[in-house]
């Protein structure tokens, strides 16, 4: 019992003494996960909207596939990206394995189905009459989708929160693709695993607390954006 309290005490010391390594690791975690989320939003929202409004064969099957992708195990995404980025793999010329770029790719693949699937279901919740009316008013399809997106923006922020939350907490993919290299690809999650295994519980607790804080701060920011919109209505 005592070692837990001792661990917490030392952890708080580490955090409040501004341990530079912990903060560098936090910065990297934040950068990689935010970048992956941003890319997933840029790709997933248009893709999801397109799937929602278009009629095409096997549409239900595609939606089922995207929904399955929401549960994509990060280690599988990591393995696939590792094989692709390996020097002997098809994208080896990029030299992205064991770099933050590689980790962003892996996390992007994890977030994309989440953002896409949530976009599809949000978009399908928009009354089709509303969509058709906008088209009837002379808007192009793209403009109509944009108007609908503005209607469902609260749900879309929730999608971003879900995607980011998954990524910042994820350890399997970044471990495989990043390699947990100190000062280069060590993330909050992989560092927590390593320090726990080494029995350095103070460091592990400190990094774990920072991980929670990072998640909380980003979600707080997103929630404020979301709720301000609610009030603005």
């Amino acid at each position, binding site marked *: 019992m005592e070692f837990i309290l001792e661990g917490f005490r030392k952890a708080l010391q580490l955090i409040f003494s501004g341990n530079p390594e912990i903060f560098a690791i936090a910065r990297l975690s*934040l*950068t*990689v996960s*935010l*970048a992956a*989320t*941003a*890319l997933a*939003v*840029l790709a997933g929202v248009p893709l999801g909207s397109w799937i929602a409004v278009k009629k095409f064969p096997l549409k239900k099957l595609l939606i089922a596939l995207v929904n399955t992708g929401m549960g994509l195990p990060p280690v599988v995404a990591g393995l696939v990206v590792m094989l692709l980025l*390996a*020097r*002997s793999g098809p994208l*080896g010329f990029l*030299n992205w*394995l*064991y770099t*933050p*770029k590689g980790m*962003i790719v892996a996390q992007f693949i994890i977030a994309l189905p989440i953002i896409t699937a949530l976009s599809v279901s949000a978009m399908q919740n928009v009354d089709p009459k509303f969509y058709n009316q906008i088209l009837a008013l002379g808007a192009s399809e793209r403009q109509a989708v944009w108007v609908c997106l*503005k209607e469902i*923006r609260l749900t879309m922020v929730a999608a*971003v929160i879900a995607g980011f939350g998954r990524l910042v907490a994820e350890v399997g993919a970044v471990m495989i693709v990043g*390699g*947990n*290299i*100190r000062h*280069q690809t060590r993330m909050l999650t992989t560092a927590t695993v*390593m320090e*726990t*295994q*080494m*029995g*350095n*519980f103070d460091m592990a607790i400190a990094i774990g607390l920072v991980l929670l804080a990072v998640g909380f701060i980003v979600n707080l920011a997103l929630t404020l*954006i979301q709720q301000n*919109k609610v009030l603005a209505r």
Partner: protein
Amino acid sequence: MKKIKIFLLLLAVPLFLGCQQPAPRSVVRLATTTSVRDTGLLDMLNEEFQKDGRYTLQAIAVGSGQAMRLGRTGEADILWVHSPDDEVKFIEEGYGTDRTTFLHNDFVILGPAADPARVKGSKKAADAFKKIAAARAPFISRADQSGTHKKELKIWASAGVKPAWELYLEAGQGMAGTLSIAEEKKAYVLADRSTYLSMARNLKLAIVCEGDDLLINRYSLILANPARFPKVNAAGARAYFDFVLSKPVKETIEKFGVEKYGRQLFFYDYAPK
């Protein structure tokens, strides 16, 4: 509308932060073992190696088995491993060159203080393992094809025991993770002395057998064979090779651990020119 745009822009900011690249450095990829990382030696040497700004070292700390798998597919430029039999095979099959055995420390057999299998006092590692097997005592194996795992299998073979009983557990993790499991399960375990010492303050496990010749742990450097893998960074790998096999690094390694752990952790066997 405007808010959404600003929000998207904000989301994209880290994208560009992440892309900031330092002046182009030559990236050298080292595949090595967890024991070298967990003691802190790797970090120390790497800082020194990267100091002049010519190289970025990507040190991937995995088991020796996995390190050599990375070598077999040309993913690594240079290997720092400790699995002699596999290394010889690796060279024979043409995957690497310039194998240089330059460093050693030793393995120790650790067990719970109560020593239920009465291993303490065994001079030979094989005898110690026989007693553990006879008592069907808990034993945690790395089971990850690492150098330590290969050594463990070698000791079981020389003890003439097939390790398979209910409490022979396969961890599939690095040395530190395996030691933590052994600590919790009050089990016997084979560990390299340097990782054990670096974690000793968190462990109640004690050494029950040490000093047998069979327990010596030899580390080698191997360069990836550029004739076989044209994509490897041969010049960078050579630079790291020459760096590790230099007088200053010899001195650093010989001093390493004395201050922190009260004794030298690694013994340098190579005579730098």
